């Protein structure tokens, strides 16, 4: 009995060697292990049924060379055919899974809900705006009007902006600022947001715009995020204030960029020589240093290296950011569906390092996994069941991968109360001092320019 086993073992080891040749042996220089090992169960190969069961038709059992060769060839062919059959079966299994997936796992659409079609239309409009004739005024109006189901009048909005532009232009003349200087325009605009501006000849006055602490993330009322609300009430937050700033900058032909930091957005601009960048913190109407933004403690070096924070956004990046604004509005109003994914993809094509888009994408991926698991009836207690559903596993892996991307970009979640504390710290003495210094510096620059 035992001897039989031994010969079989020998045949089994010789066989692959014959087929593969001696090449692998030359490559693997395995040194003999000299220390004797205590045998354990798994060291012995399991020679159960399959070794006995199949009638040993092995080619090596006949002495005739020719017959032996023929048998060998036949055996190889048979093996190949079996392999093919197995592959075919696997493929049909995968195809089945794919079919059932596309039917069952894609999120239910909100497309039929009242108001959803306005978002589709707004998305199309945004997509059709090319970077060359991109107007932030139009884009923001489109986004906000989708929320209001296109009940607002563009002309009305346009008139308000134009009138404000006239006011600013007039003030420029009154102050004797150089109408060609970008710095002068930007600085006046900054004063428009942070100080009381008056045109004496006409007796018009504009009060500073203020920060609205109430529901500043638009959790209860999404319209709190809007420029429309800011224009109506004179109060805004870190989304609407910089957006209005950009709209007015566009109106008076000034150049300024939006920049992002954790949970926050602000304005960056350059002096006329393009030597130095300045930051405008509109929520408190102050000029700030980079150090102030970094002091939040939530900007990682990786985020700077990947340019997701504190970097002036280009036109394309701004478009990408606004597309996500639209998407967030849709999510707030309806929820996640495949249309959200469409908007995310578009935003990522415009700006492949849009961290917010990746964040929303990982949320979308999570919701998708939850949906699929619900459909399959898998919960925490029977999570192992997921192994039976390759597409669900795929979704799960995709979700993990999404979170990894967000991590890798250097994004770090900033808790809302930490955010509030940081934003309030702008009123600290050192920051106030810096604000005054920067203001004086810019003012001198503008006045010096005027005298040239």
């Amino acid at each position, binding site marked *: 009995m035992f001897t039989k086993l031994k010969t079989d073992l020998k045949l089994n080891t010789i066989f692959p060697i014959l087929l593969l040749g001696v090449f692998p042996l030359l490559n693997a220089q395995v040194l003999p292990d000299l220390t004797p090992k205590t045998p354990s169960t798994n060291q012995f190969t399991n020679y159960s049924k399959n070794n006995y069961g199949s009638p040993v038709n092995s080619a090596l059992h006949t002495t005739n060379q020719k017959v032996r060769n023929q048998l060998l060839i036949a055996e190889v062919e048979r093996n190949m055919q079996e392999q093919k059959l197995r592959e075919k079966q696997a493929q049909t299994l995968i195809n089945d899974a794919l079919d059932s997936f596309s039917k069952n796992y894609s999120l239910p659409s909100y497309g039929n809900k009242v108001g959803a079609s306005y978002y589709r239309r707004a998305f199309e409009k945004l997509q059709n705006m090319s970077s060359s004739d991109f107007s932030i005024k139009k884009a923001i109006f489109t986004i906000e009007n989708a929320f209001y189901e296109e009940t607002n009048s563009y002309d009305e909005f346009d008139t308000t902006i134009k009138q404000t532009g006239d006011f600013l232009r007039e003030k420029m003349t009154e102050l004797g600022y150089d109408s060609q200087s970008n710095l002068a325009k930007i600085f006046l605009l900054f004063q428009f947001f942070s100080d009381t501006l008056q045109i004496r000849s006409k007796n018009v006055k504009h009060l500073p715009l203020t920060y609205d602490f109430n529901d500043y993330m638009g959790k209860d009322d999404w319209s709190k995020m809007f420029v429309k609300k800011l224009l109506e009430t004179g109060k805004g937050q870190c989304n609407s204030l910089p957006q209005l700033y950009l709209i007015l900058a566009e109106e008076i032909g000034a150049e300024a960029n939006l920049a992002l930091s954790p949970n926050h957005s602000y304005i960056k601009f350059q002096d006329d020589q393009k030597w130095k960048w300045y930051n405008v913190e509109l929520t408190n109407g102050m000029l700030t240093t*980079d*150090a102030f933004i*970094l*002091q*939040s*403690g939530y*900007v*990682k*070096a*990786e985020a*700077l*290296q990947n*340019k997701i924070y*504190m*970097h002036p956004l280009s036109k394309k990046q701004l478009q990408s950011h606004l597309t996500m604004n639209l998407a967030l509005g849709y999510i707030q109003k309806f929820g996640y569906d495949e249309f959200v994914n469409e908007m995310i993809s578009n935003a990522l094509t415009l700006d492949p390092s849009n961290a917010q888009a990746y964040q929303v994408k990982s949320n979308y991926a999570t919701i998708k996994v939850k949906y699929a698991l619900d459909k399959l009836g898998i919960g925490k207690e029977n999570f192992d069941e997921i192994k039976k559903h390759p597409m669900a596993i795929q979704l799960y892996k995709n979700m993990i991968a999404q979170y990894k991307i967000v*991590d890798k970009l*250097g994004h*770090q979640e900033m808790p809302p109360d930490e955010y509030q504390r940081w934003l309030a710290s702008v009123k600290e003495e050192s920051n106030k001092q810096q604000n005054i210094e920067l203001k004086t510096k810019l003012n001198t620059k503008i006045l010096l320019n005027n005298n040239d």
Partner: protein
Amino acid sequence: MIKKKLFILVLFLSISLWSQDQNKLYKDTLEQLNCMLKDSCQLSFKKAVISVENAYYNNRLDTIGFNFEINRLSSFTKSMVDHIKLKYQGRDSLKVKKYAALFSVVIDTIPIADKDGVMYEYIPYTYDFEDIWGLKNWDFMFVSKLLETGKGNCHSLPYLYKILAEEIGADAHLAIAPNHIYVKHQNEIDGWYNTELTSGIFPNDAWLMASGYIHLDAITNKMYMEALTDKQSVSMCIIDLAQGYNKIFPDNNGEFVMRACQIALQYYPHYINGRILQAETKKKIFEKEVKKDFDVFTKEVSEDDYLRLQFLEIQHEYVSIHESGYRRMPEKMYLDWLTSLKKERKKYENKKITNPEKSN
């Protein structure tokens, strides 16, 4: 008289032979490190550090003693890994345990009981505020000095940490800040976080960035605060080697240092110390050539085509270094900044990462 002359001759010869020996040793060491970078030899940070220090000591570094100490420390660290308890709950907690043990061995005072139950205290390594940049004694930067005296600086402490990490099979990334080296780790829950060995704190990135001592561009350009790979770390060793060479042979012709810079910058092109050393060496060579041909720097120099191009190249290099965000930091400013971490601990401490010894 002849005897005296002969004696002087012999002395002179032996000195020149001796320095020739060290010159060769430096060249061999450079090739050895280059071999690691080229993947022709196995990369070992420990070996790299030992060979750099041994070259400085002209082959008289007690490598056996060095290795013995490292082995002792790494087996101590390994036993710490088995006993440490963490609040950390991520799936990669074994890895994080290793990081915590490494930190304790380098920084913490650890009570140890021997087999009879007698308590001992393990005394950690401390920061030496004297001659922090090795201006008077270059070997103040060395790990061997740290092992011998128990005192180190922002060069030797993270190097020792990295060596021990390598020994116990954990990954540790060196990272640089102006005149400073610290350690970066990554775990599943917190992402990247910093380990600061000179003060034994886990500071958040704001400590470095908001300090006002680093230009934002320098971070964006990865000059600072980048988690370095092993090859980049060996490139740093090569620049250390070249700097040591300059200390031993102050009047060298710059050839060796240029070659070292060239190799190091091939694998770590934006290494600021390498770029500066290269620019300085080019300047040195340029000045020597000017002195040889013109004696003093006059207008005629700029009429010499070769020298003019050299000058422009050097100038271009300095401008490019400045533009990438580099600013020199005086020693006093550096010390202020380093101690600011302890003073403003609350502000800059990463609250999610805490010292295992103190949190339990």
